[in-house]
C-alpha cells in the first residue's frame, strides 16, 4: 500500500520546443509520453544540445521531490488559487539567462569563471573585504545562480496546475514522513537533528485549518497543530473553541494530498486500505471522539468555473 494509491493518474500540457506536449502523473511517477528515452536526451543536453521543456520539467520535479519549500509555497486547499502560468515561467527563465542583479552587479569579471557560456556574473568585492572573502563572494555568485534556478523550477512546477501541485506536495510529505513520524527507527534516533519539524508542522497547520474550518464551522485561526510521533493517528480535541490537533506528517500525503481531509462530515485522520475509486479510511465525527472506519468512494469532479485549473484532478470522496 502506497500513499498515492488513492489518487488516479492525471495529465496536462506543457510547452516543449515550439509546441505543447503532454506530461502525465501515474502511480507516483511523472511520465513524458513524447520523450520515451529522457535519459538519452539528458546526455545530449549535457553535451550542448537543447534540453526539451518536458525533460527540464521532470528534472525540476526530481530536484524538489523532498523540498519543504514546495509545502510552504504550494496550495493549502482547492480554494487557494496559485496564479502561475507558463508565460510566467518563460519570463523567469529569460531573467535567469540575463544573469544576476543586486548589490553584486558592479564591475565586470571580478570573479571570473563562475558561470559558463552566459554573461559572466559580475561581482564587486567591497574594498574592505579581507583576502579570504573572494571565496565567499564566489559562493554568493553560485547562490544567486541556484536561487534563479530555484525560482524557475518552482514556477514551472506550479504552472502544472492544482492536480500536480498536490501530488508533488504529497511526495514531499511522504519523503519526510518516515523520519518525522518516528517509524523509521534509524532516522528516529537522529531526531535531535530534525530541523524539518517546524516547516512540517506549519505545512499540516496551513492545510488542516481550512479543512477543519469547513468541518466544524470554526475560524481557521482557532486550529492549533502539533506533530504526532510514534504509533496511532494522533489526537483532535476542542478546548474552549480552539481545536487542538496532533497529526503525523504522513497525514499530508495519505489523506490531504488525496483529497480526503474532510469526507462525509468526518475529519479523516488515516487510511486503512488505500485505493481508487474505493478506499477504507479512519474518520473522526466530532472532536474528542474515537475515529471510526469508513468506506469511501471517489466521485468524478469536473473543475468548476471558480476552482483553480486542475482542481478536477484531485478526487472528491463520498461515504
Amino acid at each position, binding site marked *: 500500500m502506497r500513499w498515492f494509491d488513492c489518487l488516479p493518474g492525471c495529465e496536462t500540457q506543457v510547452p516543449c520546443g515550439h509546441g505543447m506536449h503532454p506530461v502525465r502523473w501515474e502511480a507516483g511517477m511523472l511520465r513524458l509520453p513524447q520523450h520515451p528515452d529522457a535519459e538519452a536526451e539528458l546526455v545530449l543536453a549535457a553535451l550542448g544540445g537543447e534540453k526539451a521543456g518536458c525533460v527540464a520539467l521532470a528534472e525540476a520535479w526530481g530536484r524538489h521531490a523532498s523540498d519543504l*519549500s514546495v509545502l*510552504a*509555497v504550494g496550495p*493549502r486547499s482547492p480554494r*487557494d*488559487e*496559485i*496564479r*502561475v502560468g507558463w508565460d*510566467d515561467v518563460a*519570463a*523567469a527563465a529569460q*531573467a*535567469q539567462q*540575463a*544573469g*544576476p*542583479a*543586486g*548589490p*553584486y552587479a558592479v564591475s565586470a569579471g571580478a570573479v571570473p569563471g563562475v558561470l559558463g557560456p552566459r554573461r559572466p556574473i559580475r561581482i564587486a568585492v567591497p574594498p574592505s573585504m579581507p583576502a579570504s572573502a573572494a*571565496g*565567499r563572494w564566489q*559562493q*554568493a555568485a553560485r*547562490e*544567486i545562480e541556484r*536561487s*534563479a534556478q530555484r*525560482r524557475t523550477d*518552482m*514556477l514551472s512546477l*506550479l504552472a502544472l496546475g492544482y492536480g500536480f501541485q498536490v501530488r508533488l506536495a504529497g511526495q514531499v510529505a511522504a519523503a519526510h514522513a518516515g523520519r518525522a513520524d518516528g517509524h523509521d527507527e534509524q532516522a528516529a534516533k537522529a531526531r535531535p537533528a*530534525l*530541523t524539518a*519539524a*517546524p*516547516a512540517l*508542522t*506549519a505545512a499540516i*497547520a*496551513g492545510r488542516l*485549518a*481550512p479543512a477543519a474550518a469547513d468541518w466544524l464551522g470554526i475560524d*481557521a*485561526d482557532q486550529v492549533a*497543530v502539533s506533530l504526532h510521533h510514534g504509533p496511532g493517528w494522533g489526537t483532535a480535541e476542542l478546548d474552549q473553541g480552539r481545536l487542538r490537533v496532533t497529526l503525523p506528517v504522513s497525514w499530508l500525503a495519505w489523506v490531504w494530498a488525496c483529497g480526503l481531509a474532510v469526507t462525509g462530515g468526518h475529519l479523516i485522520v488515516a487510511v486503512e486500505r488505500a485505493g481508487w475509486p474505493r478506499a477504507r479510511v479512519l474518520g473522526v465525527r466530532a472532536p474528542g471522539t474515537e475515529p471510526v472506519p469508513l468506506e469511501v468512494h471517489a466521485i468524478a469532479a469536473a473543475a468548476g468555473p471558480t476552482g483553480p485549473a486542475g482542481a478536477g484532478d484531485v478526487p472528491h470522496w463520498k461515504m
Partner: protein
Amino acid sequence: MSGEGAETYLRLLAEAELRRAAHAADGWEGPAGHGEPGTGTVAAEIALWRIRRAGRILAAAGALDEESAERAADDLRAALTVRSRGLLSRSLARRPAAPPWMLLASGGAAPRRRAPTARHAGVSMRAVPVGRTLQVADGRAPSALHFMSLVRTAAEAVITVVMRMHWPADGSSTDLEITGAGPHHLPYRQLWASDNRGAGYSVVFDGDGGTASWQGVVRLSPAPARGTRWLDLVGDGTALLRLHLVRQAARQPGPAVEESAAPPPAERLLTQEAERILAAAWDARGPTPDPDLGEIVTVLTHAGAIAADSPAPGQLAALYGRLGLAGHGIAVPAAAEIPAPWASVAAQREAAPPASGQEVFTPLAVVLPEIDGARFALAGLSCAAGESHLHVVAAGMPPPADRLTHIGSPGFSWWLKDGAGNWHVGRASEACTLGDGTQAFRLRLAPPLAAVPDTAEVVVTGPATRARAAVAVRPAPQTSED
C-alpha cells in the same frame, strides 16, 4: 528553549498571515489598468513585514538563528507572490538576487551568531594611571585637559581624556562656544608626544561632548614600547606636560570579581529596554516608550523564548508605570516590584537632584577578567559639567556595526553602585574603533554621581556572563606637578 520551537512559532504565524492576506485581498489585484498596488499587494506586504519583524525579534533574543528567520520570511514571500498577479509581475521584472541571508552572513552561508568571538581571548591589556592635567590658558577658549589613564593592547595605545572648557562668563566667546567643547579649540598647530628615549608619537583625539566638556581618548601611534617611562606632550615644539607611565603601575591591585550566569538573552532584550528608558529618564527630553515593546513581548512569550511565568514583562510594565509612561502595549499586568537597581535609579529621579558641583577626573587602571570573549579596561571616572562618565577601553567586543541593527541582540550592559548604595545605569557612547579592533567608549551614568565614591561596584552583563567587580576609585593620591 530550542530554536525549533521558535521556528515553529514563526512558521505557524506565517500560515496565519498568509490566510489573513488572502482574506483581506478579496481580489489580490489593484484596479485593472492601473499601476497602483491593490489591496492584495498591500495585505501581502503587511504580512511579510510582520513575519520579518517577528523573525528579527526572535533572532535578537537568541531564540532563532537569522538564517532560519530569513528562510521562513522568504518562503512566505514566495507563497504570497504566486497568489498575486501584481506581486508576481513585480517579482518577474526583477532579476534573481542572492537570498538576503547570504548578504547578512559574515562567513558564507553560516548563520550570523552573536556568540562571543574569541579573537581577543588572551589578548594582553594593560592600564596605567596617568592623572595629569594640562591647563590651556588660551584667551578665547581656556580649558583644562585631564589625562586619566593609558591603556595598551598589543598594537594600540590610548590615554583617556576629558577636556573641560572654561568659557568666559562675559559671553565674548559665544561664537566658539556654539561649536561645542573639544580639541579643535587647542591653540597648537602641531601636537605630538616624545618619550624618555627620544622616540616621537603622533597624537590623535577621538571622542564627543557637549558645550562645556568633551570626553574621549588620545590615540598614540605607534604604541609606546613596554618600559617607556614617560611621555612629554609637545605643542608647536614646546614641552607642555610630562605623563608618567610607570610610576604607579604596580600600585593598583586587580579588583575582586564575582562571576555568575547572565539572564537568558530574551529576558535581556527586555532588561535592555528598561536600561534605555531609565537612562533616558535623565535626559532633558525625558523617556519615550518604545512602540515595538508590546509586539516584542508578545512574540517572545508566544514563541516560548520567555517563560510564561517570567517576571520580566511585568517588571518592565511596572517600570513604565513608575516613570509615568503609558502606551507600552505590554499585555501582562505590572509586577508589584521592580529590580532594586531600577528602583534605585527611579527613586533618585523622584528625589531632588544632587547639588554637588564637585568635578573630578579620576584615573582608573582596572582591567577586568575576560567576559564572554571581551576584555575591558576601566580607564577613568569623570564628573564634570553635571555629567558622570566611566571611561572604558574594550577588546573582543563585536564591531559597532553589528550593534546597529534595528532590533539588536543585547550587547553588554553596565551598572555602577556608588558608596551610598545608589545604582547608576551606564549608557555607552559611540565607540572609537582602533586598528586592532580595540574600542574606546564612555558610559554616561544615569543619574550622575552625587559624590565620587572610594569604591564602586561595577556590574557588567554580557551574552552569557555577569561580572561584579569591586573597584577602588581612589587607590592612590594624585601625582603632583613636576
